[in-house]
């Protein structure tokens, strides 16, 4: 249990999440990729806190990350629902309103 070990695991999780977020076509699957990346951030943050600077206030950052993740989920679900209702699709490739 060292800082390097923690960060390596976090980097691997992050890379897997990045792969998912780029490659997946379905909105919900893209969100799962993003979640996985944030998961890695949580682990890395916890590792930094414990191994480098375990001061009393450091954990606040993690609470912020968790809050950000829930917001991302809530908005993601809402947008996915709206997308599905409006255009009967759940694929990112077909959501091109912002592209044109």
């Amino acid at each position: 249990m060292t800082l390097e070990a923690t960060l390596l695991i976090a980097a691997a999780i992050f890379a897997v999440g990045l792969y998912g977020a780029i490659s997946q076509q379905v909105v919900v699957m893209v969100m799962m990729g993003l979640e996985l990346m944030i998961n890695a951030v949580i682990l890395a943050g916890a590792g930094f806190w414990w191994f480098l600077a375990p001061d009393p206030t450091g954990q606040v950052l993690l609470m912020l990350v968790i809050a950000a993740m829930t917001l991302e989920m809530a908005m993601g679900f809402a947008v996915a629902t709206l997308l599905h209702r409006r255009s009967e699709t759940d694929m990112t490739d077909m959501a091109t309103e912002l592209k044109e």
Partner: protein
Amino acid sequence: MSVVADVAFWVLGVLAVLAGAAVFVVDSMARATYALAVSFVAVGLQVLFLQQTYVGVVVILMMVMEMAIMAVYMVMFMGMNPALMPMSMVHDKRLALAAAIGTFLVLAAGVLLVDWPARRGSPPPDATRALGEALMGHKMLVMTVISPVMVATIVAGVVLASARTRYDRYGDDLRGAPDDPQPGGVGR
């Protein structure tokens, strides 16, 4: 104890990575979602090992709940069942793979090459209490900012997602009994 903790930490780490990878490999919506849940639980337990007990348990709590809901959305939105209709649900696979591997290599190189500083300070005797006092003390701004953002998110989420507005429920003059497909539990 230390060896046991080391082994457990590594096992959880490997489990978190493999479960994360399984999300994009398995062909069942439920399995993909709950693989992600397993990944989160493993990371939550690792955070427990890193002595942030509150954060660790909260990660488990929130993420299992979120994945339970996520599973519903998966089934709802992935109209075709990939298990029944095998088809590739990915685009730019090669690019994504390259980006992911490249990112991992860069991050791993950084992790191993950077000369990490020695630990500064010592952990508080009660990390949970320290977190609570920080949130309610001089880091209070964080929570005061998050709270309105969360409220705004709830409102925005409902506005985006709900199909029926109050005009659909109460009619154009917004009077009378609501026209709901199913009445609620408190007699409205």
